[in-house]
């Protein structure tokens, strides 16, 4: 839960103040590199925080101003509807941040094998 909240808040702030999308990969990677405890847990930390952040943000944009553009982009990407586009946004965040989190944990495991880490 700590990890989820940390990642969510850090990503939200960094994304708000800078235009870079890849914070959703870098933040969970750094977190799990330092604090990751399991493969699944690390994947989840990234996937959940980024997924929630992008899903909520996309839904917010969509419900306030972005319906027309979402319609057009959905047509351009041939994904059917703007709902699919929200799902695509969510799915990309989940995958990108999830794998970044998992990789962070695996790196930690490789660089500092569990015993050393405990010590």
């Amino acid at each position, binding site marked *: 839960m700590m990890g989820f909240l940390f990642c969510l808040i850090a990503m939200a702030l960094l994304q708000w103040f800078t235009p870079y*999308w890849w914070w959703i*990969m870098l933040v969970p990677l750094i977190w799990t590199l330092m604090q990751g405890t399991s493969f699944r847990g690390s994947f989840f930390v990234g996937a959940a925080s980024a997924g929630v952040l992008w899903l909520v943000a996309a839904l917010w944009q969509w419900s306030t101003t*972005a319906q027309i*553009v979402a319609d*057009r982009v959905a*047509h351009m990407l041939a994904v059917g509807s703007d709902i699919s586009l929200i799902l695509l946004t969510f799915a*990309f965040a989940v995958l*990108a941040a999830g*794998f970044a989190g998992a990789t962070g944990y*695996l790196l930690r495991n490789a660089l500092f094998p569990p015993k050393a880490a405990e010590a």
Partner: protein
Amino acid sequence: MRWFKLLLSLAITVALFWIGNYKVGLLPPIGKFVNPFAGFWQNGKALYSLSETLHLPGLQAPVTVVWDNRQVPHVFAKNEHDLFLAQGYLVARDRLWQMEFIAMAAAGRLSEIFGDRTLEFDRSRRRLGMVFGAENTVNALQENETARMVMNAFTTGINTWIAGIDERHLPLEYKILDYRPEKWTDLKSALVLKYMAWTLTGRFNELELTRTRQVLGEEAIRQLYPTFPPFTDPIVPQETPWSFRPIIPARPEKTFYPVAAANATAEDPFVPGSNNWAVAGSRTQSGHPILAADPHLALNLPSIWYEMQLVTPEMNVYGVTIPGLPGLIFGFNEHIAWGMTNAGSDVLDWYHITFRDSTYSEYKYGDEWRQTRIRVEEINVRGGETVRDTVVYTHFGPVAYLEHEHPFQPNIPRMAAIRWTAHEPSSELLTFYYLNKARGYDDYRKALQHFHCPAQNIAYADVDGNIAIWHNGKFPLRWREQGRYILDGSDPQHEWQGWVPMDQLPHVKNPPRGFISSANQAPAAPSYPYYLGWFYAPFERGARINNWLQTRTGLTPKDMMRLQNDNLNLRAKTILPTLLQLLAEAELTPTEKAVYDTLKAWNFEARRELTAPIVFEYWWREFYRGVWRDDMQSKSGRLLWPRADVTIELVLNHPDSPYFDDRTTEAPETLAMVAQRTFKIAVQNLETDLGPMGRSWQWGKARGTDILHLAQIPGMGRMRLETNGNYAIVNATSRRAGPSWRMVVDLTPGKVRAWGVYPGGQSGNPGSPYYDNMIDAWANGEYFELLFLKSPDESHKNIVTQTRFEVKK
């Protein structure tokens, strides 16, 4: 195992980062693009809500912008510098991507965006000397103090906007195509102008006509390719006397230079046209002139036009501009109104060049060898190496393609230099500046002196009751028919002989008939002493407009709107009754008979709910091909087919012409047989393409209009609009082109009123409702009254908000 898992996870992570951050093929970088904080989700309808007060660097005094309910900015400035600065800022706000894209396309720089798929297009722009022409225009503008002021202010305004947008507020197309805007320059404005010059004057058929003459002979040329198109009612009424002493250049002995040129040519490209007219007070209900104009262009989104009102203490002008050009191009002020149609005169010739050897460093000219000049073009290619392209320049202009090269367009001859008025130094932008401020006929005349290319028929009307039209531009002085065929670049007698004096160009002011008009037809009767070209629009639109106006008085602005939306197919009215008479009714199948009856009952209107228009279209196309296909065969390449008007003339006046016989068969064919055969084929084709006769044959459904995105990005256009009209009809709406701006101005002194519409919207943002909000009204032939404000404080129900630009200290 641990390492394997790590490597796998790492590989997936890197791959996701890669597709997230970089473009793959034509897909946008997916992570960057769907990022709800800076990607496309930000390009909603609230993308650029202007705050009430903004501080702009470079302003000399505050500027007030009033926005109406169609998002038209009405700009009130204290001086011209601030006015053009604000114009640049506002146009960039709404149309930045479009204007930069047009400038880059004109400069042959699309490969920087699209990679090597656009390399040959880019190379062709360099070979045609587009940047060369734009540089000459910039140099000419720099020499004029007024032009310098206008350009500096305008460019500053655009760059102020560009400097203020961050990643998240980039226009959508930059995000899709993944690149960033550059700084705007005067050169880019000149490139936008050259883009229009190419669109409107980059049409030529010297190569095919030269070949056609070699294959068919001179006699056939005289008959099938007349220099004055049949049935034409010229722009300047026939009876108008010419009150000047013309300079007529001598015709050399050798005027035809046969060139062995064997590349094939595709179908004729779309030919843009336009209408404009003005009626004098003698024909209007108000007793004051009314002017109407509707330029026809390829229809795209964002729309080519941007609507504005520009006000200083000395001027108050309303109209439309092409994003990237300062001032307004079509419009009106408190004194005058003007509108343009393409002149269609020939301002581009090809000179065959005889090089001394394969180094292309010298070419023959008279008795000497002249040095060529080399210009090395660098084409930057996204994801590839920079291509260096060497272009050989002669004193005529660049040699577009050498012997072994493949022209980008099949009608461009090889080993030929292009001589084009768009390469000459000129300052067209000053015309707009002076027209915007004009107070009467003399100002209009003065403004026109600066307009060289693309030459235009500029219609005029004013509150003092004057109406006029000038066929205006810089036209080469030529012997008769010079430039119809490829010219001999080694023969000094084939040079352009100077320029036609601008005050001797076809024009008419306050003609007795009480109206002036143009529809791209021949500007003057054959008695006009100068040769300006021959490939003018056929008679239909011009004749229809003139016949319509000729028979009416008491005209109102509503009537002008009706005429702009007139759907009478004069081609069908001229030819169809004769064609129908030729059919042997008894030999028709029941389906064919039903189709025949539909045509017979038709009132010749191209209305969307009718089926006859599509039948005529199919039949006419088949008939035309049936007449000419056999005659226009040549192993040496495609010939120039005779035009529709010539074909009509042949049917009506020479029904026994041998051209109706099919040369490829032994049995003789007659006109009636061609008609019968092609009618049956047309019906068959209609059934194949559209199914059995029914709703799917309705003109609006079967033909329809597609308004594509300028870069043809799917989902960003408006498709399958059910429209009325067709080419060669006053309402010249076709599948991909049509009236791009319809304007009607009532010039009652002190109470100038105007109406307008264009198929698009003010915003260039596909996520804004103002991107395409006027399309339905346009398709229905409806207009908006243009809000012509006198002061920023005026109140009106259509005013939405105000923005103040304050001086930034």
